[in-house]
């Protein structure tokens, strides 16, 4: 008893003191929050979620649900080694197209012609490869330049003539299909047999190279994150708790190394067949694009200006940012990535047809970006959204294929998913403005 009585006396003043220091910290800037503990970071995250800033959560949730669903319905095929590799290759064109659209969506604009632009660029490449007899690098470069020209045209019409991007790109949606049709000819097909282009979606890296790249990527990511934390910590800047940084690094390492492991397994159908496996060549291409886009958006002044124009164009203009130049540039980046997406799609199908990139290609890409967490209202989004959303879209497409779903069901379900993602985006935005975030 005698040891217990002093305890309340010791403990009692402590909460008061803590409360006093807490209010002081809230009201005094010199004591602003810089270092966070794990619990304060977590509670901050919960507050963020509640105020409508969902980030990658819906996409990750969707991925998990869809994987469980399709695994339950098609346990023997959906998560087979062969199907996983197939699924990734399926996701490549949509993901790249979506990554370009992220830039356009960040300004609150839309590019409805991105899909057919990818087809038109692929047609240019195909014609140069087959009819022109050009080497692959000339053809690919020509496709990229075509993409840049299309983007510059859209950008000029939107930024200088001031036509809403929706109308400009709707017009180009028709016009570019006409160009592709003229290039390839009605009912025609351009076969793509060039070794390098063909390899993108049909050949696999040697196992040792796949492992090396995966390990290097993990080490690079860990180094970047830990060095940044160390720098922020030593200079007394705002930072995340070390534990969370380590958790992020571990999660990325599991995803990359786990993916490399699965893809490097032997996928040969019979035990006697020669080794067949490895990471598709298109995957490192997407990884490189992701790194470049993430760097540009988050570490350069240009990226900062893109976010600023998307958030408040008038503020950006007053801050001396050339808003028109930013507008033009995002359409050029969007169409350039569309061209790359078209090349990968041509590689996957071994050919270019006049309707390449038409149909639901664009719908899938916009859906991917929005499902990944990019807002249709501008100012919010990341390059990685395209990866997450692209995987969701590819899993739906692939899973429905395995289920043998009819075409009508496929359209209905994919359209429904896009609407669902857009609803989440719109509701989250309402929530954000309601809670003043």
């Amino acid at each position: 008893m005698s040891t217990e009585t002093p305890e309340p006396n010791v403990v009692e003043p402590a909460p008061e003191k803590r409360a006093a220091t807490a209010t002081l910290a809230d009201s005094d800037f010199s004591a602003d929050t810089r270092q966070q503990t794990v619990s304060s970071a977590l509670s901050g995250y919960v507050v963020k979620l509640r105020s409508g800033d969902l980030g990658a959560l819906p996409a990750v949730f969707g991925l998990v649900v869809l994987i469980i669903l399709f695994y339950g319905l098609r346990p023997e095929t959906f998560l087979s080694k062969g199907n996983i590799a197939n699924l990734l290759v399926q996701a490549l064109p949509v993901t790249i197209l979506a990554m370009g659209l992220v830039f356009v969506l960040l300004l609150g604009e839309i590019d409805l012609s991105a899909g057919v632009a990818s087809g038109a660029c692929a047609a240019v490449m195909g014609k140069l490869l087959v009819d022109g007899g050009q080497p692959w690098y000339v053809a690919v470069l020509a496709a990229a330049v075509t993409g840049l020209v299309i983007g510059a045209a859209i950008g000029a019409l939107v930024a200088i003539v001031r036509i809403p991007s929706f109308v400009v790109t709707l017009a180009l949606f028709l016009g570019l299909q006409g160009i592709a049709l003229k290039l390839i000819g009605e009912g025609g097909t351009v076969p793509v047999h060039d070794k390098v282009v063909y390899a993108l979606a049909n050949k696999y890296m040697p196992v040792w190279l796949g492992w090396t790249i995966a390990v290097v990527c993990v080490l690079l990511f860990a180094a970047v994150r830990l060095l940044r934390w160390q720098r922020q910590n030593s200079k007394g800047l705002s930072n995340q708790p070390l534990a969370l940084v380590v958790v992020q690094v571990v999660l990325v390492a599991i995803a990359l190394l786990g993916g490399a492991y699965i893809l490097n397994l032997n996928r040969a159908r019979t035990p006697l067949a020669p080794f067949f496996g490895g990471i598709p060549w298109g995957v490192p291409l997407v990884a490189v694009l992701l790194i470049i886009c993430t760097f540009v958006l988050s570490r350069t002044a240009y990226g900062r200006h893109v976010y600023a124009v998307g958030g408040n164009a008038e503020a950006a203009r007053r801050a001396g940012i050339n808003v028109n130049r930013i507008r033009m540039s995002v359409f050029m980046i969007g169409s350039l990535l569309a061209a790359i997406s078209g090349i990968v799609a041509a590689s996957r199908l071994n050919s270019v047809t006049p309707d390449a990139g038409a149909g639901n290609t664009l719908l899938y890409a916009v859906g991917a970006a929005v499902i990944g967490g990019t807002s249709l209202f501008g100012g919010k989004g990341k390059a990685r959204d395209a990866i997450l959303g692209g995987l969701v879209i590819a899993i739906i497409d692939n899973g429905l294929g395995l289920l043998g779903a009819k075409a009508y069901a496929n359209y209905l379900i994919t359209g429904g998913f896009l609407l669902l993602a857009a609803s989440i985006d719109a509701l989250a935005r309402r929530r954000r403005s309601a809670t003043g975030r």
Partner: protein
Amino acid sequence: MSDNGTPALELAGINKSFGAIHVLHDIDLAVYPGQVTALVGDNGAGKSTLIKCIAGIHPIDSGQVRFNGKPVSISGPRDAADLGIEIVYQDLALADNLDIAQNMFLGRERKKGIVLDEAGMEQAARETLARLSVRTVKSVRQQVASLSGGQRQTVAIAKAVLWESKVVILDEPTAALGVAQTRQVLDLVRRLAETGHGVVLISHNMNDVFEVADRITCLYLGRVAADVKRSEVTHSQVVELITTGRSGDLGLAPSTAAESI
């Protein structure tokens, strides 16, 4: 209150017309470092036009602008910023989706090579807010969307101060704020002056003006009706100056005031 010092910004005989409409008549205005000069006047008195002339958005027709005693010509917003004149507009030019530090450096980001110097910018933003003794903002990494109106105004003002500015012009900074937030912003306006800035405060609110201003310059239909020390006038005199252009022996001669109409 060193009226004898050199004004940081001095306007002499500024005239400005839009076509046939003579908007500003021989405007004289002096802004002293360490003082708050309130610019008052009814709607259409020419306050905004005058500010836009100082900002370099409208070219002036005649008259002289002196900065720290030296004649200067301001032919664009860039010139004004280079001299150290910063203007905080009424509709705050902040991007909601960026954080405080990012907004303060918007358009003038510090770079290391091609990479943004986040550490340097964050530290500078923090130092500026600390120098102004801002007590209402939790972290410079807070998104602007999560701030209240007063906090936003604080960030907009701090943004202006960040650039080694000599003269800060505030266009109705308290217009949309509640009582407590108005208090915060007025405190900040005072601190701006205490840290050696010349401050021009445009306001319709007489309480605000009498609380923070050292001098009051009253515009009436494009002319300076009076340029007086705060201590020399009363509320009602200033209101009279704003509405009729004269009050007792202060203000425009009756003939001039009538002519302007």
